[in-house]
């Protein structure tokens, strides 16, 4: 069985984001870009499944401008066997990405499609669900545990939901989106980084896949959240009650 993993390049998780003065978006110049942490977890899970002998190949795919191939290279260095880079402009919204992924699934025919539950840049949490819908495949989102049964061709997925853990059994092929506690992604080791240099990254254009970009969303404005006011230390309980009553008006 082949596993396909979708990977996105985003502003590094540890970078302090700055909004552009014209409010058109986030400042991307001279900013460190890295693999979306949830995609990293998705890839790690796919690699573990392959290492346990339940899959034969892991294919990393990414949709975006040319620098996205650097992120794919990271995926190859972690252990993916090969990669596919669909060249496209930045900031494409989930439905288009889902259509592109569906087109790639039609080409590659994987038994499992892994995605991060969301990308930390736009926080949309839609792509996995949409591509499952387009493919008419079962979906296990927010996975915190994945167990594969090769004989029965099912995946058992634990999902972290409000009330606890929900366990689903999915018939393969299926879409799984990964949550934070699923695993801890590995470091890219030197031998693997070197090996990754000779692994192939195949390029596709949107025309090749017959997908058109239609923008169904318009960004009106991007602003910073309001600054948190600093707290004050009060001298007595009476003062606290007074503030709660007259300033905060909560009692």
């Amino acid at each position: 069985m082949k596993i396909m993993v979708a990977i996105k390049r985003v502003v590094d998780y540890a970078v302090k984001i700055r909004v552009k003065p014209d409010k058109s978006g986030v400042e991307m110049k001279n900013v460190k870009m890295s693999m979306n942490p949830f995609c990293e977890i998705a890839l790690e899970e796919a690699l573990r499944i392959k290492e346990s002998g339940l899959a034969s190949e892991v294919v990393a795919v990414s949709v975006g401008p040319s620098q996205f191939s650097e992120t794919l290279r990271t995926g190859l260095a972690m252990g993916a066997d090969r990669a596919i880079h669909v060249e496209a402009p930045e900031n494409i919204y989930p439905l288009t990405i889902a259509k592109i992924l569906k087109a790639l699934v039609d080409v590659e025919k994987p038994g499992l499609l892994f995605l991060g539950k969301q990308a930390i840049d736009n926080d949309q949490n839609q792509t996995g669900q949409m591509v499952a819908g387009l493919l008419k495949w079962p979906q296990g989102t927010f996975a915190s545990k994945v167990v594969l049964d090769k004989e029965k061709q099912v995946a058992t997925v634990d999902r972290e939901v409000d009330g606890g853990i929900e366990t689903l059994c999915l018939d393969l092929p299926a879409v799984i989106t990964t949550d934070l506690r699923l695993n801890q992604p590995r470091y890219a080791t030197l031998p693997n980084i070197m090996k990754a240099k000779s692994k192939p990254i195949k390029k596709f254009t949107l025309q090749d896949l017959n997908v058109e970009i239609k923008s169904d969303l318009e960004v009106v404005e991007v602003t910073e959240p309001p600054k948190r006011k600093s707290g004050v230390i009060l001298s007595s309980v009476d003062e606290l009650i007074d503030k709660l009553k007259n300033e905060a008006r909560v009692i």
Partner: protein
Amino acid sequence: MVTKLYKGHRVIIGSLNLIFLRPVIVSISHMNKIISFDKVSGILVCEAGCILENLIAFLDNQGFVMPLDLGAKGSCQIGGNVSTNAGGLRLLRYGSLHGSVLGLEVVLANGTVLDMLGTLRKDNTGYDLKHLFIGSEGSLGIVTKVSILTPPKLSSVNVCFLACKDYTSCLNLLSEAKRKLGEILSAFEFLDHDAMDLVLKHLEGVRNPFPSSMHDFYVLIETTGSNESYDREKLDAFLLHSMENGLISDGVVAQDITQASSCWHIREGIPEALMKAGGVYKYDLSIPVEKMYDLVKEMRIRLDASAKVVAYGHLGDGNLHLNISTPQYDDNILSQIEPFVYEWTSKNKGSISAEHGLGLMKANKIHYTKSPEAVQLMVTIKKLLDPNGILNPYKVLPPSLFT
């Protein structure tokens, strides 16, 4: 009257009241304003009480960095950094404060405000007095303003954590790194097996980059440059070459900032791990790099099973942090370590204090590193600038030379 410089909450010496009869403590923490910043030259002028971390944050917004960074940044003041000539993690790249400090304002013991607050990179008029106050630990004057050259912040940072089979490989890797990474090399740190072991045992949240095997030596290399793909290409070529030459036995390259921080966490967490492990005797030594690890080996033979000898440091700067970790403090062990460690360092033309200064505890040890003539000249300078001995008495120079 005795003046003792003291800042915030840091306790500098244990037995303050034993030594100082009526100490006067001067705090400059209210002198915390930034006076000017020139975005073209990168020259920052500020008051000496500015906390290092605040300066780092201020510069970050301007697209610059401080030429020094160290674990104490959240509490230490730039005046304290200058007075201790603090080194830290970026010295390899940006040099010591003797290079980046362009000017100082200092208040002398007699109250004279000495204006040397130049903002010029080049100024060959007369004696360059500011250097007397850099690293003199407050014994010659109180630093009140600082002018410092800051480099632009570069966006492309790579960190790799490598394993080496022996100390010679670490050294060869260092010379390779200087040649092959050249201008982008920004840190070259090392730790030995015992240091790694200690960190993994005593620090929470530490991640071993090589979970399946332990190695004898580890090296952390950081590069800082302006072009991500160029830097990465350079780093990869260097790593490939070093792997083929057998200098590296294993290694990981951080793929994002979080992984880079985890690598740094191992190196920066050693002091904390040492504290948690029990008693620790600490030595901060400069030793010609090729001989540096011999001391560690000799110390292990001397102490045998009685203590754990842990070595790490700024290999790129020839600076060894030698730590002897014991379950409890023990005078017998101490007598095995001292004066041996000082004598060994002196014999090998090293310094018994690379970046931590002499303070009170090591003032009497200055002879191990400095010639009698040099010490005598220092005493003359101290007497000239502070004839009544009111500034940090008993620090830096042996008190016996003043009686």
